[in-house]
């Protein structure tokens, strides 16, 4: 289980998280929703060690992991698909996948997982020797997900997995996210598309300006009036 307690993080002197507490329990798919700049991506970066919190604690299976390096945290089973450019464009598809297994040394297991990824994403097999930058946006996203899974994580964090994808691909990505959860992995997902995020997840947290302002099951959040107004199209300027 992953537990954050009172996490505070700043970019220079600007506070990004002001005491975030949340949990991801065994087998859960948890969504983080909120407007731009609410601190969703920062939360993921802090968990994966890309950012250091100034206060608060993170525990994973009861062990403190606050302030560990990304490498250490990945080694303990937490993989992160960061936002933005998702792949290494000049490395081949196969090299990108190998990057996901960088910390593993079980050659047979890596080969087995690579085969499993190719079986799940036949496109990646076809393009294995091609530079990842030549893939379409959707293919790059599949590659990013497959790369994260190549580390054999127990918790995967997806940052905006549907961003910039065509509607039919968005659906596909969400299917994969659910599939990952069904395999018994914990998932922590940041998603702008609040409706999709809430209908997929077991539980969700609503972030506003660096604080958790509401939490509950997906259905509970969907039913709450402020979430409806702000994120589910109730107001004209909704994100």
């Amino acid at each position: 289980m992953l537990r954050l307690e009172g996490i505070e993080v700043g970019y220079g002197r600007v506070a990004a998280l002001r005491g975030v507490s949340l949990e991801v329990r065994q087998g859960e798919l948890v969504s983080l929703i909120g407007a731009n700049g609410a601190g969703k991506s920062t939360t993921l970066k802090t968990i994966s060690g890309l950012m250091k919190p100034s206060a608060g604690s993170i525990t994973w299976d009861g062990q403190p992991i606050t302030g560990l390096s990304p490498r250490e945290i990945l080694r303990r089973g937490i993989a992160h698909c960061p936002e933005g450019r998702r792949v290494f464009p000049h490395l081949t598809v196969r090299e990108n996948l190998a990057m996901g297994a960088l910390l593993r040394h079980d050659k047979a297991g890596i080969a087995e997982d690579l085969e499993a990824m190719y079986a799940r994403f036949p496109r990646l097999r076809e393009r294995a020797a091609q530079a990842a930058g030549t893939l379409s946006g959707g293919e790059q996203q599949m590659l990013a997900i497959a790369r994260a899974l190549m580390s054999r994580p127990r918790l995967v964090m997806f940052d905006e997995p549907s961003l910039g994808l065509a509607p039919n691909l968005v659906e596909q990505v969400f299917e994969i996210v659910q599939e990952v959860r069904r395999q018994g992995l914990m998932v922590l997902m940041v998603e702008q598309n609040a409706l999709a995020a809430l209908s997929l997840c077991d539980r969700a947290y609503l972030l506003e300006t660096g604080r958790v302002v509401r939490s509950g099951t997906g259905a509970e959040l969907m039913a709450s009036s402020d979430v409806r107004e702000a994120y589910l199209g109730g107001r004209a300027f909704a994100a």
Partner: protein
Amino acid sequence: MSAVFGWLFVAAMAAVPVVFPDPYVLSVLTSAGIFIIGAISLNLLLGYTGQLSLGHAAFFGLGAYASALVSLGFDIGIGFGLRLRLDPQPVFVGFLAGIAVAGAFGWLLGRLAFRVRGAYFVVITICFAQVLRMVALNWVELTQGPMALIGIPPASLWLPGQGVVPLYTKPQSFWLVLGVGTLAFLLVRQVVQSRIGRALVALRENETLARSVGIRVTHYLVIATVLSAGIAGAAGSLFAHYVRIIDPDVFLFIYTVTMVIMVITGGKGTLWGPVVGGLIFGLMPDLLRGSAPPEAQWIAYGVLMILLVMFLPRGIVPAVAGLLPARRRPAPAIAAMVEPAP
């Protein structure tokens, strides 16, 4: 470019002293070769990690001074009434010392400077070279300051049956530079095609993503800097024993800029880029010398550079490679981009 082409190039170069035993041609090629080695080393940093070090001449200069001082010997006070004394050593010991000292400073600079990126990193590297130049100018007891280190012995080689042979002649110096250059090229090729190389490319392309897959970014940047500095140190050592006199000007900014230009025009991040760029910018000043007055030469030099950067922003080698029929690129590459995604 294929290995066959590469070895043909080396063979053609090796034949130059036999075919054109002209000492002027050879001296021009030898000094160009020394700078090409410098450019090859810079390319590892600039091309493959994307970090612009504007202090690269520092490693070149360190290699030159360390190698020269070890082969000349020295006897200096190091404070508290203690003295540090070294008897003259064979030149190959100096050569190795040049590589080691430059590599050690590469480690130090990497450890310090890679806490920051971008402009901050560039400024630190410039300062590093400037500080070393000041040290070389003012530590007269060790470096003779602006009076220069003179009488540096020529490079020597141990040959079976003949013992240690000093390399006085132009063809010998040229072959030595060609040999070291080939080794430097092969070393860099080995590194960039290894796990280290893939890590370097990954962190150049997306540092956040690289860290998130568990790459120790600073660790790899420091490895690249140490290797790059060591090779630059070897180039500096060759320079010292070829020219046989060095002064603090080896740390000058212009030497760094020359190497940067060679790498960028040739094609940074390609193995042959620094060789091609180095041949052009290493030979051109001398090729133009007979036919144009110096002022016109500098203008021609500048115009060529601007044209290259404008029309071949990725450098000559990628541009030429783009013209050749792509053998290893499978045809579906284009299809993948136009085809609708599944």
